[in-house]
C-alpha cells in the first residue's frame, strides 16, 4: 500500500533508538515478542499517573476511570478481532498460554468424555499441546496430529480419518517456526461438518494480518498482547458466546463470584467468572493503545509491508546463500508470513545468533517451543528471523552482513 513509511513508523518506537555493539539495533525477533510504540507506554503510565485504582465496585472517580479503561479494552480488542459480542466473549488472561490452559481446563474438562478425540497439528506451539496432554492424562481423551508435509504445509489428505470422533480441532493460524499460514476457514468447515469446534492459536497471526473470528469460522482463539505491540502480562481468550456460556470458572477467588457463603459459592455470570483477582489493568490500557496503533497503520498495510520484507529476505538468501542455508518453511510468499527459520550449514543457531548480536541484530536461536516440529524436520534448533511493522530493509542489511560474517567465521 502507498503511504506506508517504515522510517516514520520506526520513529514511534523508543527502543529502536538503541545502539548495540556500536550498531543501531536491528530487532528481528517480533515472533517472540514485539516492541511497543510510545503511545502504548504512555497509555500505561497515564493509568498509573492518573487513574491507578482497582476495577469494579468502587464508586470514586479514579476507580470508575480504571473500570472504564479495563472494560473499554475488552470492547476495543473485541472489535479488533470482529467479535460479535465483545463484552460477553473476550476474557483477559496472563498470556496466550494461560488462555489455552483456561480453555482446556474449563471447556475441555467439562465437555469432553473419555475417548473423545482432539485433533492438533505437528506444527503447534507447546502451549497448544501440553494442556491437552495434561487433560488426556486426567480424563483419557485421544489426541491426534495433522501431519506436516515436506513443503511445510498441513497435510490434510488424511483429515477425514483424523476427524472421526473429533470434538475439537485446535491449530495455529500461523506457525511461529515455519511462517506457514494455515487454511483456517477450511479447517473450520470440516471440523463443523463432524460436529467438532475449531480453536485457533492466533498468537502469531493477530499482529500481522486482519483477524475476523466470524470469517475464520473459529469457536475460540487465543493470543498475547505482547506479540501485537502491547505489554507483557496480558493475554486474550475469545470464545463464541454459546460455547463460553457452558464453561465453568477457571481460577477461584475474588472478582469471579456472584456470592460466597460459609457453605459454598456461586460463580459470576459472564466473562468475569474467568477473571479471578485484580486483573492487569495498566496492561489492558496498553493493549487498547496497541490496537489503536495497529489500526492506524492498517492491518492490510502491515501485512503488505511484511510480505515485501519476507520476499526480499527469501530472494537474498537464495542468491547469496544458495546451498548453504536451508529455510525451514515455504520458500515463496504464498500463504506464509514474516517468520523465517534458518538452518545454516556448519553454523549452530546459537553461534549464529551470537555473531549477529555483535551486529546489533536480534534473532532467536532454539526450538521455539515446537519440539515435535523440530523432530519432524530433524533439527534441534533453528535461528529465527521475524518481522514487525517497524522492520526495515536496513534491518535486513545488518542481518545479511552478520550472516556473511558468521559463515566466514564458522564455515
Amino acid at each position, binding site marked *: 500500500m502507498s503511504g506506508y513509511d517504515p522510517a516514520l513508523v520506526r520513529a514511534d518506537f523508543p527502543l529502536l533508538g538503541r545502539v548495540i555493539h556500536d550498531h543501531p539495533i536491528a530487532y528481528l525477533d517480533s515472533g517472540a515478542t514485539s516492541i511497543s510504540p510510545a503511545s502504548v507506554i504512555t497509555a500505561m503510565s497515564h493509568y498509573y499517573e492518573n487513574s491507578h485504582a482497582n476495577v469494579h465496585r468502587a464508586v470514586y472517580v479514579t476507580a470508575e476511570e480504571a473500570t472504564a479503561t479495563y472494560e473499554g479494552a475488552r470492547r476495543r480488542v473485541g472489535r479488533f478481532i470482529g467479535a460479535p459480542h465483545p463484552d460477553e466473549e473476550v476474557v483477559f488472561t496472563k498470556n496466550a498460554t494461560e488462555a489455552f490452559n483456561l480453555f482446556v481446563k474449563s471447556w475441555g474438562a467439562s465437555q469432553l468424555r473419555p475417548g473423545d478425540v482432539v485433533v492438533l497439528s505437528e506444527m503447534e506451539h507447546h502451549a497448544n499441546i501440553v494442556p491437552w496432554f495434561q487433560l488426556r492424562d486426567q480424563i483419557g481423551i485421544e489426541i491426534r496430529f495433522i501431519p506436516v508435509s515436506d513443503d511445510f504445509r498441513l497435510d490434510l489428505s488424511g483429515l477425514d480419518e483424523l476427524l472421526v470422533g473429533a470434538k475439537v480441532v485446535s491449530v495455529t493460524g500461523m506457525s511461529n517456526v515455519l511462517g506457514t499460514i494455515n487454511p483456517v476457514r477450511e479447517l473450520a468447515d470440516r471440523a463443523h461438518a463432524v460436529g467438532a469446534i475449531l480453536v485457533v492459536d492466533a498468537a502469531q497471526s493477530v499482529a500481522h494480518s486482519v483477524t475476523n473470528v466470524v470469517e475464520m469460522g473459529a469457536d475460540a482463539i487465543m493470543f498475547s498482547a505482547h506479540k501485537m505491540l502491547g505489554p507483557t502480562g496480558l493475554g486474550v481468550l475469545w470464545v463464541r458466546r454459546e460455547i463460553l456460556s457452558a464453561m465453568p470458572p477457571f481460577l477461584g477467588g475474588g472478582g469471579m463470584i456472584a456470592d460466597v457463603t460459609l457453605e459454598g459459592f456461586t460463580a459470576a455470570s459472564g466473562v468475569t467468572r474467568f477473571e479471578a483477582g485484580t486483573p492487569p489493568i495498566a496492561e489492558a490500557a496498553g493493549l487498547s493503545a496497541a490496537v489503536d496503533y495497529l489500526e492506524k497503520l492498517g492491518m492490510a498495510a502491515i501485512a503488505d509491508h511484511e510480505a515485501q520484507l519476507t520476499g526480499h529476505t527469501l530472494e537474498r538468501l537464495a542468491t547469496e546463500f544458495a546451498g548453504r542455508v536451508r529455510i525451514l518453511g515455504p520458500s515463496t510468499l504464498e500463504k506464509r508470513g514474516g517468520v523465517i527459520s534458518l538452518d545454516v550449514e556448519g553454523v*549452530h543457531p*546459537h*553461534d549464529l545468533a*551470537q555473531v549477529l548480536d555483535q551486529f546489533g541484530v536480534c534473532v532467536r536461536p532454539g*526450538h521455539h517451543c515446537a*519440539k515435535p516440529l*523440530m523432530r519432524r524436520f530433524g533439527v*534441534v534448533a533453528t535461528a529465527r528471523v521475524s518481522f514487525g511493522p517497524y522492520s526495515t530493509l536496513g534491518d535486513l542489511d545488518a542481518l545479511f552482513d552478520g550472516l556473511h560474517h558468521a559463515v566466514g567465521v564458522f564455515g
Partner: protein
Amino acid sequence: MAGMEDLYKEIIMDHYRSPRNRGELLSPPATRTEGFNPLCGDEIVVYLIVDDGVLTDIKMTGQGCSISQASASLMSAAVKGKPLSDVRERIDTFKALMTVHEAALDGEASDAVDLRRLGELAALQGVVKFPVRIKCATLAWNTLIQGLEEISPT
C-alpha cells in the same frame, strides 16, 4: 562490553573444528551417560572407562554449538589418562571458572582460579561474560560428573 574475541578464542575454534576424543566406546565395559540441555536441545553422550582409579579412556558423541562442542573436547583432553582425584580437581577448577562471574559481581576478587594450572581450559574463561552460554559450556562437564557418579558414587 564483552566482544566476540572473548568467546570464540582460537583454541575454542580449533577444538570445535577438530574435536578430540569423538566417537563411541563399547558399553559395557564403558559407562554411557547422556546429557541434555533442555533450553537449546543440545545433546551429548559421554563414554568412560575407569581402570584401577584412572580414567583410561573417554569418548563423546552428540551435537551442539561451538561452545558446547569445544568445551567437551577440551574437557576430554584435560581428563583422559588422569587419576580420578586429578579428574575431580579439574572438574572443581572448571566449576570455579564458570562461577567467577558471580563472584566478581559480589565484589570478591576473581583470583579464585589459578589460570596457570588450567592450561588450554583457560580458553573457556571468556564464556562467563556471556551468561546464557555458560549452560553450553557446562553440559559435557555435568555429564562427566554424572558418569563418574555411576562408576564410583561419592
